[in-house]
């Protein structure tokens, strides 16, 4: 396995970093918080203009035809700035699901809307905090003429208020199995409710459907859909989340290093105190460790290697911990101002806590890895 970054990949990463440093500034992020965590102008620029959402979409659907590895490189950068856009939900959560379970006719149409039309998309995950987020599905779909009637409640859908497209998995009422429905927000606007999330840059809202009528064409799956059908595409969401966390950990460390270099106490830059230096070095080590596994897991996913699943579990654990630690240390090393609204460390702390237990807690992920070790499982 070669983990070299190509010239193209390095260029893409640098450009993304440069672009976001300019556009997803602290001021912009803070402004978006008042706007339910969404920056429409930034979104337009990176989706419609720069075409980032097509990163892993096949070229025949208007995408760039690249893979998980390149997706990860972009998500690190959005994570670094806590960019208030539905990028992760669109490229990591929704796109792989369309790609993986949609019937041919729907797939190309939907993917090309994502790749080219700046469509923001999300998925109503039945249980976002569970190791298997599809383990119990509450939405139901009842045949209704040519269409369907959907009912059910999802307590927290990522980026729902900004989404142009929402995928809803539902139990079919007429026969065993599941259906996947693509819903336009207009149809459900009245029944969505934004939540007061601790991490405003990754907004969530609840979604209640009560016999909402949708067309037959809304159902996009190819038939024979099972909960297990989601196992493969959800790996992309897990990986992407880890990428954003690792990017955020690096962004948070940069923030801290900048502050430390400027702040004088006892007549010295705080950055000159050895204990502070060692703690920053430890953050770099943790982040680097997480990033290495992230890249390896992404390459495994692209190579369809069967180590990918547990590597993604591992990367999730390291990423969540690296971000938590970076945020906790940022607040501590900023001293008094680290506990004020005005400084940015708390934005990273919020992201760290809000994402720590997505797709399963650290303990659950590690337990699943332990179960998979042949020596242990026997």
């Amino acid at each position, binding site marked *: 396995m070669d983990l070299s970054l190509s010239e193209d990949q390095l260029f893409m990463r640098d450009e993304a970093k440069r672009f976001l440093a300019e556009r997803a500034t602290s001021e912009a992020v803070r402004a978006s918080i008042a706007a339910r965590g969404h920056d429409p102008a930034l979104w337009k620029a990176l989706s419609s203009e720069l075409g980032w959402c097509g990163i892993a979409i096949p070229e025949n659907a208007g995408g760039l035809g690249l893979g998980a590895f390149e997706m990860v490189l972009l998500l690190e950068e959005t994570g670094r700035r806590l960019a208030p856009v539905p990028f992760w939900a669109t490229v990591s959560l929704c796109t792989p699901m369309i790609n993986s379970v949609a019937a041919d006719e729907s797939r190309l149409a939907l993917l090309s809307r994502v790749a080219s039309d700046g469509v923001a998309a999300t998925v109503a995950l039945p249980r976002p905090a569970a190791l298997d987020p599809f383990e119990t599905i509450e939405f139901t779909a009842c045949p209704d003429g040519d269409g369907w009637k959907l009912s059910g409640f999802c307590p927290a859908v990522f980026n729902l208020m900004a989404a142009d497209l929402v995928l809803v998995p539902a139990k079919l009422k007429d026969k065993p199995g599941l259906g996947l429905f693509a819903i336009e927000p207009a149809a459900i606007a009245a029944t969505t409710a934004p939540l007061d999330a601790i991490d405003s840059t990754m907004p969530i809202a609840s979604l209640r459907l009560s016999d909402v009528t949708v067309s037959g064409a809304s159902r996009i799956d190819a038939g024979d859909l099972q909960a297990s059908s989601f196992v493969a595409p959800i790996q992309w969401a897990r990986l992407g989340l880890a990428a954003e966390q690792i990017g955020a950990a690096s962004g948070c460390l940069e923030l801290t290093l900048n502050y430390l270099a400027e702040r004088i106490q006892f007549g010295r*830059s705080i950055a000159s105190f050895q204990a502070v230096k060692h703690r920053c070095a430890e953050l770099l080590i943790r982040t680097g460790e997480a990033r290495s596994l992230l890249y390896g897991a992404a390459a495994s996913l692209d190579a369809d290697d069967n180590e990918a699943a547990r590597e993604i579990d591992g990367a999730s654990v390291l990423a969540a911990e690296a971000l938590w630690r970076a945020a906790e240390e940022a*607040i*501590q090393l900023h001293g008094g101002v680290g506990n004020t609204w005005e400084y940015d460390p708390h934005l990273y702390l919020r992201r760290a*806590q809000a994402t*720590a237990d997505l797709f399963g807690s650290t303990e659950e992920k590690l337990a699943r890895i332990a179960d998979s070790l042949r020596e242990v499982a026997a």
Partner: protein
Amino acid sequence: MSGKELTAFRAEVADWMKSNLSGRFAPLLDRGHAGDGGALPDLRKDWERELATGGWTCPGWPSEHGGRGLSIAEQVAFQEEYSRAGGPGRLGHIGEGLLGPTLIAFGTEEQKQRFLPPIREGREFWCQGYSEPDAGSDLANIKTRARRDPETGDWLVTGQKVWTSLAHLSDWIFVVARCEEGSVGPYGLIFLLMPLDQDGIEIHPIRQIGGGSEFNSVFFDNARASADCVVGQPGEGWKIAMALLSFERGISTLGQQMGFARELDLIATLARENGAAANPMIRDRLARAWVGLRAMRYMALRMLAQNADPQAKLESLGYKYQWSHWHRDLGKLGMDVLGFAGVAASDDPRAEKLRQLFFFTRADTVYGGTSEIQLNIIAERGLGMPKEPRGEAG
């Protein structure tokens, strides 16, 4: 006081709390603690007067200054029973616990007569003006200037104090300022008492990460302290300031721990209710929290012990670090017990309490001396390791 008498005393406090922290004061139950410090200010000021009426303000002050001269054991018992009953955060704490003892030790007769009674009666509330933007960890690096008004002999103060807790609810502030031009560090400082309600003072709230604003920046622009409001001599400000801080340790600690115990109970209860307690890692952390709290209790008792055990004295240097990290970890544990339910605001006031606890406890390891400063102090004063050199600037 015998063990039996102490038990009776505890019962007396518990009874009083039960009868009085009810009716119109019922909303104060468990309110106004760190992170919620600005809650219900008018009612809490009334509560201070209620306490005064019951004879429960300043119970440790000597009787000649209006206190009850309670022994340490009794003061501890009072603090514990107050907290156990869910007594609200004390707006009078700075006056009663810090300034009062300082004036009793260092104040003039006139100062004692002027300032002690309204503290005891819950009529005047105090806040503390120590920290500055560049005098945080480096506390002696004070830039706020006091110059003498040649006409009146009053002191005119210009500068900025930060992290002033509850300044917006207070009447007076005590301020450490530089009164000798060109002096540096702990030399040439003065300790002044100043009314907040005057033209030269502006109070700006500091918004904290959890959204609350119980701290403030206080700006002084030729603000006036009257000539008779100097404690100690001009130039002795550092000595007075440090003596004041030394009154803070000890007794209130056990009351604080009782509050911690209530928080741990709440977290454990929620863990049982929502199933998190079935997770062995959460159980492990709950048990560790219990162990840590128990160790803190005995550390406090060692600190309060009469006989000087040099080992206890040395180890007590670690107490700030110990409780603040314990509490910060508890805040995180609360969130982890809530799990995904903690990611957004909830209708359950208990969950809201844990979210606030999480945010506020981030500051415990910073305010009142950062952990880094604590570790320096332990290493240098406790273990005799070489001092950290100062830089050239500053």
